[in-house]
């Protein structure tokens, strides 16, 4: 089997197409690198604390909802929680309805503004789920196993 066409004209056409795809591919790749921050949907708490996020501007924060940080104000539907990237944390205030998947320890993407006091005031909150799918029994078994492991390391067995 011949991989390359025999005819010189066809050869030329093939070379032209390969060149064109390579050219456009590298142009797109360069553009993507240049736009990197713009294509990214959100800033992590560490980026925000480092001052990378825009001041006085709407932007999105993304990370995990810190376990044990969720507090609801029963009077006015105000919700307080902390977003973490496991290194740094940013406190968030939100008033409104949360998506079904919003949970402590799960991913979250919130849009809003960072106040001068370092509290992020969110106008929308979206849940970001991970790529894992399993039945509840399996999830229970995994968390039990982890607890057991933790206990055994703590007691030194």
């Amino acid at each position, binding site marked *: 089997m011949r991989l390359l066409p025999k005819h010189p004209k066809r050869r030329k056409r093939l070379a032209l197409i390969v060149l064109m795809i390579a050219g456009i591919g590298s142009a797109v790749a360069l553009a993507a690198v240049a736009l*990197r921050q713009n294509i*990214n*949907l959100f800033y992590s708490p560490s980026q925000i604390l480092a001052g990378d996020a825009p001041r006085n501007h709407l932007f999105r924060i993304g990370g995990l909802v810190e376990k044990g940080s969720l507090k609801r104000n029963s009077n006015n539907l105000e919700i307080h929680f902390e977003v973490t990237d496991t290194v740094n944390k940013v406190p968030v205030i939100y008033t409104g309805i949360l998506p079904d998947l919003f949970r402590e320890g799960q991913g979250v993407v919130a849009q809003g503004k960072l106040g001068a006091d370092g509290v992020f005031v969110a106008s929308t909150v979206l849940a970001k789920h991970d790529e*894992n799918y*399993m039945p509840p029994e399996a999830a229970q078994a995994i968390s039990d196993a982890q607890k057991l492991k933790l206990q055994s390391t703590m007691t030194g067995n």
Partner: protein
Amino acid sequence: MWSFFHRLASPKHFYRFADRLIPWLGWSTLITFIIGLYLGLIVAPTDYQQGESYRIIYIHVPAAWMSMFVYVVMAIAGGIGLIWKMKMADIIASSAAPLGAAFTILALVTGSLWGKPMWGTWWIWDARLTSELILLFLYLGFIALQSAIEDRRTAANACAILALVGVVNIPIIHYSVEWWNTLHQGPTVTRFGKSAMATSMLIPLLTMFLAFKLYFATTLLMRARVEILERERDTTWMKNMIMGSDE
């Protein structure tokens, strides 16, 4: 073996080949779909986080995979037609385009229907969703370009170039969730390594994927057959075949 492929390049032989294959493919598609739906809707367990809503995956993910696969098929066929001036390759490329567009629309709409209850939004301009929307525009561009150019040969060449240029979007869709941070989660099923899904949920997904693949093969041949009928209606073999089947 090689001469078999060579013969398929002739519309006449391709037509006969498609005629014989379509019933087999069609029935296996139907059976696989029934098995896949039974496994996905009834046998597969509930998800620990998303409850029953995750069952949309059995439509959404195969449709999204097919939207990219069909594009590659279309671009390769277009490229072959462009270089070797092969009529059958052009027919395959133009038959694949509307099917790919259909899979892309299905992936986008089911994704939206899934995103609303789980993420809390129908749509977000993150890298994954945006690049998949661009894929739809590429398909629609292909179809529009083809109908805009009168001459078959010129139309096929222009469409092939558009399809080949658009191939750069395929790795962007695939890797978008790794290159950038997005609302869309990372890949669940990866070719290498363990997939992040319980086996009882994965088997229905792979069955549905097979069903979608068989469906694509069936409908691609069906569309190609119509395209041949249209293009070759003045040839002697076509007249003989149609009059022959009359008696």
